[in-house]
């Protein structure tokens, strides 16, 4: 009996569970890719801002003041998106841990059966892990398909959301430093091809960010979660189970 035949049959048999986990994984993949893309858009916006600011002259007093304030707002944005991404990763890990534990409990007799026909803990563990990998792979592909389908809208939405959050974060610095004044003085002596708003952030969409990113990172972290839950939970539990089925 081929290993993969057994794995796919197991996947089909426990399809209800895997459909739930796949929906969860699609949500995880979409959120993870959106957060990573959002961080990249922000980095790009910061780069573009500094480039535009340079046209005023690097030693300009107002430019230095703006650069510091904007830099701080960008740093806050990167921090918050990273913190959010970490939470999503942890939440995904917890969901898989609970789901895996539930499924393992649900398929105890199946584990016994596999031991009874002489399968090793390694073979059983690999079967269960591959079922989960397979379900995550399908979820990942669905997410990639959805992102390709709504690529432009997604970039536009993320840029607009980023701009809005960035504007809010920048506002927080207004009370301590008079940015408005710095602005007026900066623009008073220059003719530029951009406005005050587009100096800070892009317009409706960026020129250099046309596609989302973070696919590999999302795939890797999702797979790692499955590997860890299977190695850390399923395999030890199965080995304990083996003692009951095959007394030694």
């Amino acid at each position, binding site marked *: *009996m081929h290993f993969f035949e057994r794995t796919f049959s197991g996947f089909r*048999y426990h399809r209800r569970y895997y459909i739930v986990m796949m929906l969860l994984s699609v949500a995880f993949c979409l959120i993870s890719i959106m957060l990573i893309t959002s961080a990249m858009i922000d980095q790009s916006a910061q780069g573009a801002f500094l480039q535009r600011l340079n046209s005023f002259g690097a030693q300009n007093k107002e430019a230095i003041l703006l650069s510091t304030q904007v830099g701080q707002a960008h740093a806050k944005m990167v921090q918050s998106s990273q913190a959010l991404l970490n939470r999503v990763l942890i939440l995904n890990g917890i969901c898989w841990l609970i789901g895996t534990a539930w499924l393992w409990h649900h398929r105890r007799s199946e584990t*016994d*059966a596999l*031991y009874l*026909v002489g399968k090793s803990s390694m073979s059983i563990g690999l079967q269960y892990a591959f079922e989960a990998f397979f379900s995550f792979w399908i979820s990942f592909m669905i997410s990639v398909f959805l992102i390709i389908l709504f690529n432009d809208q997604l970039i536009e939405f993320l840029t607009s959301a980023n701009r809005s959050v960035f504007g809010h974060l920048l506002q927080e610095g207004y009370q301590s430093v008079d940015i408005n004044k710095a602005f007026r003085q900066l623009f008073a002596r220059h003719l530029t091809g951009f406005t005050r708003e587009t100096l800070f952030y892009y317009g409706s969409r960026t020129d250099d960010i046309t596609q989302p990113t973070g696919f590999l990172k999302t795939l890797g972290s999702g797979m790692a979660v499955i590997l860890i839950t299977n190695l850390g939970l399923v395999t030890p539990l199965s080995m304990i189970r083996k003692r009951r*089925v095959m*007394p*030694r």
Partner: protein
Amino acid sequence: MLFRSKQLDVYRENLAKLFAPKTIQYLYVPDETSLNDLRDQYIKNFASGGLLKQLAFISSRDTGILDYLSVRNNLYINGHSKNTDFLPEWLNNNSPILDQPAATLDTMQRLYLQFYRGLMGKKRYLLLSGRAEVFDPQVTRAFLTEAHRALQQTDSCLLVLTTDQSLLSANPQNAWKQPPVLSLNTLVK
């Protein structure tokens, strides 16, 4: 290490002499608790003798049958012997039952499937431990007659752990009123 390997060879030889191929051995136990204890003890002994891979299980409770696989996949799960002449018609290559899920089989069919699965996987020993309510005399006789016929075409031996003394009386040449101790120390002296 070399000594251990030699010890295991002797163990295998002595066990093979005790339970000859193509035979059904009847081992008597007074009650179901003793039956389970003896089964567990034999599994431990086979494991310590390095023979677990040569042991197949037949049981009404722990069947080792994966319901989500087809009957064919369950039959071949331990390997696929070239010689399939011993298979009954309902498990033969063209039988429509083979492509059904194993979940559709009834209790007796599941017992037969376990037995033939062991033979397909060329297991040297098949350990049958059944509950009395499943193995009524008529069903048992039919199963053992078919098993005897199939075993003649293989090198396997069926060990029947039973609480039914009449089975021993009917087969005195292979009956064990006192089941043998299969520990490494006992068989390797």
